[in-house]
């Protein structure tokens, strides 16, 4: 047995095996992930006549559709910009509070900050709709008989802030934690006041992370579909319009709009990789008086107070309000229990089926991404292919930057009846398999990024040691590299699983008749069965929250593996 394993390991360690492995991984990476999400370009060019007929020169609507698109796009860009500004105003001070201060309940605050991330977007949109827009949320507090804000641009912004501010807070938190405080102490010893220290020392150090985080938040906001679908009212954003156009079978215009979103996303992605490092911060001149004034304790208190107040009021409570709503509307004839379990339409059955669908889709996506992610991470980190590695490294993030409905639509076109496989009637029609493929694609970066970071951190010394001890390179991979990557694999898996569990936008485009849990929530909100939707949200939130708690536990435990030398 041992001999057999050793033989297999030896043959898998050969150069030939490695080349075949690399080639297969790259082939899958391009065919399953990259080409389908860029297929939209080919499609638009091929179908240009159709596209221009529907958008620009339609005999009935003229160019109104083009104007509509422009409006939606501008609205999306504006929403994203305002969202990012609010994100920075709340997320940046929050990161500082979490890293620089020591206080009772810091761990609790830290968990609370991550909590909204556990709320899948569809559940989130629903929760926010209930809090701001229904008679039972904020209206109830102020004694009004209907919601304070109706669905529309403002509610979209309030929703987007909740799931995008972690990009700022988490990025900055990590940077601040790894940062050497001696620089700041040195500045203080040189006579700089707190505010000046922050502006001249801390800010330049966190600049890159802040810009990268802001761009990511912007792209996420630009492409979000699931939550927006619930709160948009009549203010269509670009991703929503894609969903609408697709549901009207206007594939040409939908592809055109998706393509514009993809182009914007790619430009932003390239910006992250290239210019974040080069942007300088203005003025090194110090306005001594003003800054001395601003360094007063009062301002710090004000800043901290406002940050925590807005965090609680704009983010935390609205994001979790659906739970409160559920418990208020649990029993009674219109309560969740009665609606879900004792009605003739058997909601519990569809809930159960969609839950199983979600879980199995997430599990398959996770498993496949473990294999593909490992292979790609090794290629990017270990193979010395120069420029090609750098290109691969950028391409890996591509699915992350592309709006989910555009991504779903492009994949739908690629595999479907009007894609490159049209001669054989398309390979995949909307349904379970296509949902799995879409989920593999958009969760791929989450897994691979974590693995790349971890692999880069592993000193190759461990692997060299293993080989001098007589282990073949594949044995080394099995016995040394994988155990070293164990935490990263777990963390990546949980990220992928949670994201897959909560995804709505892309799923909407490719689901056909299959339902996942977030889609079910959207369905029920649309049929105004709010208690049932709250019930489904609750299940989804609890699942995700447990997974995120495990994730936090793993990532904090990671330190143990580091040996002090």
């Amino acid at each position, binding site marked *: 047995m*041992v*001999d057999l*394993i*050793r033989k297999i390991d030896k043959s898998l*360690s050969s150069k030939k095996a490695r080349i075949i492995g690399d080639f297969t991984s790259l082939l899958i990476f391009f065919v399953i992930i990259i080409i389908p999400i860029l297929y939209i370009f080919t499609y638009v060019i091929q179908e240009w006549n159709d596209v221009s007929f529907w958008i620009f020169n339609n005999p009935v609507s003229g160019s109104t559709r083009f104007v509509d698109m422009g409006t939606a796009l501008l609205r999306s860009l504006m929403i994203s910009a305002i969202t990012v500004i609010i994100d920075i105003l709340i997320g940046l001070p929050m990161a500082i509070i979490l890293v620089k201060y020591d206080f009772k309940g810091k761990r609790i605050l830290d968990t609370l900050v991550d909590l909204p991330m556990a709320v899948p977007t569809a559940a989130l949109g629903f929760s926010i709709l209930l809090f701001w827009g229904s008679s039972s949320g904020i209206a109830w507090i102020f004694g009004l008989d209907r919601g304070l804000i109706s669905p529309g641009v403002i509610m979209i912004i309030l929703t987007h802030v909740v799931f995008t501010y972690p990009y700022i807070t988490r990025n900055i938190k990590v940077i601040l934690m790894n940062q050497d405080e001696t620089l700041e102490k040195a500045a203080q010893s040189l006579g700089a006041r707190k505010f000046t220290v922050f502006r001249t020392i801390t800010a330049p150090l966190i600049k890159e992370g802040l810009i990268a985080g802001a761009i990511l938040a912007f792209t996420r906001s630009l492409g979000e579909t699931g939550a927006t679908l619930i709160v948009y009212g009549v203010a269509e954003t670009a991703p929503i319009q894609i969903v609408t156009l697709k549901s009207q079978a206007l594939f040409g215009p939908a592809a055109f709009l998706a393509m514009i979103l993809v182009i914007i996303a790619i430009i932003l992605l390239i910006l992250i990789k290239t210019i974040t490092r080069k942007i300088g911060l203005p003025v090194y001149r110090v306005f001594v008086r003003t800054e001395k004034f601003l360094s007063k304790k009062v301002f710090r208190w004000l800043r901290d107070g406002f940050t925590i107040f807005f965090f609680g009021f704009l983010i935390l409570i609205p994001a979790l309000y659906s739970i409160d709503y559920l418990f208020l509307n649990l029993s009674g004839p219109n309560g969740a229990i009665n609606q879900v379990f004792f009605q003739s339409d058997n909601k519990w059955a569809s809930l159960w089926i969609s839950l199983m669908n979600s879980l199995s889709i997430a599990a398959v996506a996770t498993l496949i991404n473990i294999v593909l992610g490992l292979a790609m991470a090794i290629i990017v980190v270990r193979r010395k292919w120069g420029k090609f590695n750098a290109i691969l490294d950028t391409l890996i993030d591509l699915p992350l930057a592309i709006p989910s409905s555009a991504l779903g639509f492009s994949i739908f076109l690629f595999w479907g009846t009007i894609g490159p496989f049209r001669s054989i009637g398309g390979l995949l029609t909307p349904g379970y398999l296509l949902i799995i493929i879409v989920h593999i694609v958009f969760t791929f970066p989450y897994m691979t990024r974590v693995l790349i970071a971890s692999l880069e951190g592993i*000193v190759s*010394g*461990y692997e*060299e*040691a*293993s*080989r*001098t*001890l*007589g*282990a*073949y*390179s594949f*044995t080394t991979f099995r*016995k*040394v590299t994988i*155990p*070293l990557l*164990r935490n990263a694999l777990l963390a990546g898996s949980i990220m992928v699983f949670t994201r897959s569990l909560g995804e709505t936008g892309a799923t909407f485009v490719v689901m056909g008749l299959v339902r996942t849990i977030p889609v079910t929530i959207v369905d029920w909100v649309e049929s105004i069965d709010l208690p049932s939707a709250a019930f489904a949200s609750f299940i989804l939130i609890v699942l995700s929250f447990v997974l995120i708690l495990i994730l936090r536990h793993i990532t904090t435990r990671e330190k*143990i*593996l*580091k*040996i*002090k*030398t």
Partner: protein
Amino acid sequence: MVDIILDNIKKSFGSVQAVRGVSLKVYDGEYLTLLGPSGCGKTTTLRIIAGLEKADSGEIYFGDKKIDFNVPPEERNIGMVFQHFEIFPFLDVWDNVSYSCKVRGVNKDEIEERVSKYIHLVNLDKYVDKFPFELTAPQLQRIGIARALATGAKILLLDEPLGALDQRYRDEFRVEMRKLVKKLNITAIHVTHDQDEAMMISDRIAVMRKGSILQVGTPGDLYIKPNAIFVANFIGESNFVEGEVKSIDKYTQIKLHGGGPIIFSKNKHFYKRDRVIGSIRKEFVKIKEFIEENKLKDNNLIEGNINNIAFLGSHLRVNIELENGDIIEAKVTYPPSIQFEVGSKVYIKLHPENVLLFPYPEDLDYELALE
């Protein structure tokens, strides 16, 4: 027979020539050290022997067997100890040490026996089920040694194994490691930049610089008969003086530059008027009282002024300025046999056999640099 033979090994990284034609024979059971400043190619040479790096040209033999550069490390049957230990963090001590047996498919009973033997040899019996993060750096390196030995290999490669340890553990380790290697009768190649370590631990030392071996010899050879200014400078501590050969009879007479005094050397490989560098070990510089009759009795005394004295416990470091401005440092065991203080006029005596001569190099600064 596991002599290790390197024949004209060359290796470049891009435009940097790391190893420029190294040839070396390491005898069966020998403890040999590759000694040199950082960047001299010693670690690259070791990694080439281990198979962790492929040489560009040259040949390697283990015994009579030629080792192709493509033979991967796992098939070379060597043990290697790393500077940063590289103890697998997710395995306990036992699993770390038994790793090589397991991946090679050694049967259970033998693993049990071999692993406990080597764990015992490095005194870690108490720690078998500890994980690396629970151990100290010296303990980790003990695991590193046991793990390398448990391969059963007859060749042990050590890459700065004591580099990451505190000074006070190093001395202890040196003695222990040499004993261990000798007891197990294995051939060891040890890489270090620490000359004390090399002197203490090795049968022979190969001094490397800029990718080449300058001299191979026993610690004694290198100390007494260095064949290059760099070796004289790197091993032990020497004074270097500049001068010209005046005459050659019983001894070679050298007139020091700048109108300095004459010194004598036993070395006779030079001609009159040759420019030379004289090298004198600091501990061979003797200080004599400044009394006229001393000078009458012995014409090999040089006049000088003491301009600095440093007390270092076991010995003093005394700087003596000669009349031409050269400064000679003497290491004088404490307590000194004569009285002196800063400002004292003294004679120094340099025995001719302790004055080594080297031809004046093209680039003296380069020869005297320690890198």
